[in-house]
């Protein structure tokens, strides 16, 4: 029987609940909650070589190279704060935390925010920018960058699959359910059966944070 593999967490569906085709569209990955559409047919003799896209054209990002937006600066500062916390540099960490929340605070709100706009951006991320970044980082043999890309790409798929389901199911997707975010990689889990370890970055689940509605 054909097997299918979850592109987010690597879970393999072996047909134990019946043939793949008979599973409802609402079926989700039992490990990470990804939608059925995030699964791919598992080729026999599975190759562990990642398909790397050929497109290695330079990115047209030069125009504001070096100019971080305020929200990017916020992420940069909270990242540096984390690094300094690990080094037990309390005062410096506190300083960067302060900057991170300052930059978050001064960020202008998005005009007409909509779930569909996030989906559009994710489409470009997953179809163009992740393949390109993977190819460039692979070429440079930058293992740190490759690892970051693997995690963020998987999390992006999860977010996409949640957004797709939200379009169909609306608030009932999260109603009366607990929602968690992995504080290490950003993986989102909905439900009450938290996996022991994060399916993306493998940290133990006490690193997950429960999310409250605004």
């Amino acid at each position, binding site marked *: 029987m054909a097997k299918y593999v979850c592109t987010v967490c690597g879970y393999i569906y072996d047909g134990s609940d019946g043939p793949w085709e008979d599973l409802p569209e609402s079926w989700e990955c039992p490990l990470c909650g990804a939608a059925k559409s995030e699964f791919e047919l598992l080729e026999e003799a599975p190759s562990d070589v990642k398909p790397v896209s050929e497109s290695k054209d330079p990115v047209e990002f030069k125009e504001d190279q070096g100019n971080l937006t305020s929200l990017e600066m916020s992420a940069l500062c909270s990242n540096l704060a984390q690094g300094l916390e690990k080094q037990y540099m309390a005062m410096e960490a506190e300083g960067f935390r302060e900057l991170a929340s300052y930059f978050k605070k001064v960020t202008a*709100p998005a005009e007409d925010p909509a779930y569909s706009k996030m989906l559009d*951006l994710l489409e470009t991320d997953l179809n163009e920018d992740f393949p390109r970044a993977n190819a460039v*980082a692979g070429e440079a043999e930058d293992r740190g960058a490759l690892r970051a890309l693997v995690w963020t790409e998987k*999390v992006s798929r999860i977010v996409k699959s949640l957004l797709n389901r939200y379009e169909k199911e609306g608030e009932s997707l999260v109603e009366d359910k607990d929602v968690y975010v992995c504080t*290490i990689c950003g993986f989102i889990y909905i439900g009450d059966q938290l996996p022991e370890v994060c399916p993306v970055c493998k940290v133990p689940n006490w690193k997950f944070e429960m999310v409250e*509605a605004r």
Partner: protein
Amino acid sequence: MARKYAVRNIRLCTKDCLCLYVCPSGATDTENSIIDVDKCIGCGDCADACPSGAISMVPEFYPDQQEVEDDVVQSMRKLTRSKSEQERIASGLSGKLAVAIEKSNHIMAEELLRESGYLLPQSDNTKQFLQSLLDKPQPEGFPSQTVEMLLEKYEKYQEEKSMDEKSTTLDNLMAAFTGESEANRKYTAYAKKAAKDGYVNAAKLFRAAADAETIHALKHFEVAGKVGTTAENLKDGVEGETFEYTSMYPPYVEQAEAEGNKAAALTFTYAMKAEEVHAGLYQEALDNLDKEEEEINYYLCPVCGNIEKTRPDKCWICNAPGEKFIEY
């Protein structure tokens, strides 16, 4: 060698206090439970002793961050921009899912930035980022004092790191000097023994090797910048010999006598008395250094190391006959 110091994780500390007993410097004994960085000598005893794993040894300085290639940075930054934009959109939406997606995107942006040149907080990239914040006009309410504080901390770190790197090599040179000097004396002793037992070749080899170590030791010492002017060197000689005969040898002699080790007591006593003579001679030479003087011959006692300016009948320290003295 990178230095480390101890930090106590107060959340894990169960107040079992073994760290207080083992710390040789008193660094763990503080009122606020934070280990005193200035006192800590980095021995690691507290971390080994703590039953709760509450103490980690952290390096004082980190190796420089690896460069990230420019096109990697560019392609990661494109993704960062998209993640930040998604965070911004999500922050304008209500509901649990939006909150989760907002957080998730923030974490992804952090991750992407970390691997595009901001892994180590103490890097030039961080410095340039902070500097750029000060160079631009900023609106009221911008925490510029915090940015200045962070820049100052960074500069202090860099300064101390480069000082540490220099002092490490200096320490290494002096450690190598000590080791090579010891090896020279050791091989000289072995050569003497080999010659006495009739092993001619072994004796020669030991002598050659001893000389080789002298070559190394002299070079290390010179590179370390320890050879001064002759006046300075004479002063150093006075200080070294004085320390030995006033502070170092007296307790050695006492201890050896208490233990009944007569041979040790004798060699210590000979050295102690000879060093006092040496100190006096160095001082005299220093006083007369720039005066025109007729040449002096020195006579060395080959038994105890005493030095005289005329050949004596016998050594006043060890009674060796005067004709055994070596002329310089």
